[in-house]
């Protein structure tokens, strides 16, 4: 008898466990839908005209899908120019940020000097500082240097404000590099510079890829600086450009959807191919910070 109760108890437990797991999966999947649904809806309405946005089901494709929305905003809305600005400003900013941060991390982890912990502390605290507390002096500073409404102001601030996070991600990797390599390089008669460029930099390539991707995302999405420092259309990047463009076309849903899709597509494509690196970079940056 006791065996029978035990058996029914254990099958009851197994059932409970299965229901529990089902609930867990349901929660996880609902969360995933919540995270992804707005973007799916965006894709759908970017392919509709107003008539179809208002009258067809939320998640239904019109036939035929109106790809002309994309052509229209790219040509008429000058989205192409904003896109090009975003590309080159992001590229220049990322190259300098990663290179300068690698220099700094090398000095912070490999060289011997007295103030290095103070300087490291300054980079760590730099992570916490609100951008808005620097905005007014930076505006004055760039005005004096005649860099206001000039892409240089954006590139400089992109570099300055992303150096701390980049150095934090690099630090962990540099700490794990064996010192014997440098020693043997130096015994072989290498100068510090040759050692850095020919030994250290190539060895850190995995983490350089990670920091490059993270910086690309941050710079691509930068908004406050461009919005504050840049006023002429010819230098605006995609974030501020779409903001202005949408302001003019508030009623054309298809055009707005297509503009937004164009602005997020490069990030989504990068994510599709490089998600492991992105995950790694975000985790490392956050936990170290």
């Amino acid at each position, binding site marked *: 008898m006791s065996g029978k109760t035990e058996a029914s108890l254990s099958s009851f437990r197994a059932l409970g466990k299965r229901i529990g797991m089902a609930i867990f999966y349901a929660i996880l999947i609902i969360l995933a839908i919540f995270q992804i649904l707005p973007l799916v809806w965006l894709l759908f309405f970017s392919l509709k005209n107003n008539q179809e946005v208002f009258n067809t089901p939320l998640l239904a494709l019109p036939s035929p899908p109106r790809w002309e929305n994309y052509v229209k905003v790219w040509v008429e809305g000058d989205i192409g120019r904003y896109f090009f600005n975003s590309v080159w400003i992001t590229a220049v900013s990322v190259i300098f940020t990663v290179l300068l941060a690698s220099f700094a991390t090398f000095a912070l982890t490999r060289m011997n000097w007295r103030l290095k912990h103070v300087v490291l502390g300054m980079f760590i605290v730099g992570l916490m500082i609100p951008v808005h507390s620097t905005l007014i*002096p930076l505006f004055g500073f760039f005005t004096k240097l005649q860099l206001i409404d000039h892409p240089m102001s954006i590139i400089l601030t992109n570099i300055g404000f992303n150096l701390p996070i980049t150095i934090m991600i690099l630090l962990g990797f540099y700490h794990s590099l064996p010192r014997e390599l440098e020693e043997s390089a130096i015994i072989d008669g290498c100068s510090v510079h040759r050692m850095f460029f020919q030994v250290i930099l190539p060895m850190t390539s995995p983490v350089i890829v990670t920091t490059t991707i993270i910086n690309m995302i941050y710079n691509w999405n930068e908004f406050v600086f461009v919005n504050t420092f840049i006023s002429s259309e010819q230098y605006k990047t995609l974030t501020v450009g779409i903001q202005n463009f949408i302001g003019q076309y508030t009623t054309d849903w298809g055009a707005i959807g297509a503009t937004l899709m164009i602005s997020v597509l490069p990030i989504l494509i990068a994510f599709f191919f490089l998600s492991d690196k992105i995950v790694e970079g975000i985790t490392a940056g956050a936990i170290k910070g």
Partner: protein
Amino acid sequence: MNKMMSDKKVIALYILPSLLLLLTLVYIPIVMTGYYSFMKWDGIGRMEFIALDNYKELLKDKMFWKSVYHSFLLAVFSVISLAGYLAVSLVLSGKIKGAHLLRKIYLIPMLLSSVAIAQLWLRIYHPSNGMLNHFLLFLGIDDPPNWLADPSIALYSIFVPIIWQYAGFYILIYYAALKSIPASIMEAAIIDGANPWQLAYKIKLPLIAGVVKVTIVLAVVGSLKYFDLIYVMTGGGPNGASEVIASYMYQKAFRSFNFGYGSTVAFSLLLICVLVTWLIRKLTRSNEEIQY
């Protein structure tokens, strides 16, 4: 070797470019913001020293305190939602098929620009054609609210996309921390007869307490200085109903061209962030530094 790595000229060459950029773009501006906060200045004309007048005005400025209240409200919401992310991560880090993929899906919104997110959610909240009210009408709710125009709910309406934006980020961090707990510790606890709840409360949570502390600081400071979505979606409106400290500063400095008073708000924002960070670190000091 040591001699080469102690050469002052070489060290300067490697550290100075970054350090100078950090100083000129971050630290010197902060000092200058503090200095401007004692000035009457429109950004173009001459500065006039007015001592603490800006701060006296700030103390009486109802709109400033309202924005401070809203920023702290966002901080409270963010910290409460951390508990939810932690629960999700505990489940996700268990024996869940597809966990690897799910945490990546959760992360996607965080990678998009705030402007794109804001514009997208402006459409979602659109009173007649938005996804949300479309859905509510479908459910038979005849008179769905005007989410961003109604002052009593506008602020909360913006909290939702902010949380949507960052959920995946925190889940990712917790997930990574939970996965890094050595298997031997978990096995030992299971052999000792710990059930899943005890494993979570007595073993996993204490072991990732350091990471939880970091995320609390990140969530609170991130909320206090939050700007982007609010600026794009409502500009702080309607009638200040969704104004936060950073958007108020931006409006004072770059819309009303009151650079002196804007600096006072900006410097107060910095002080609030520093103070709150220090306070959280002090309050959570006891459960620091767990080694395993």
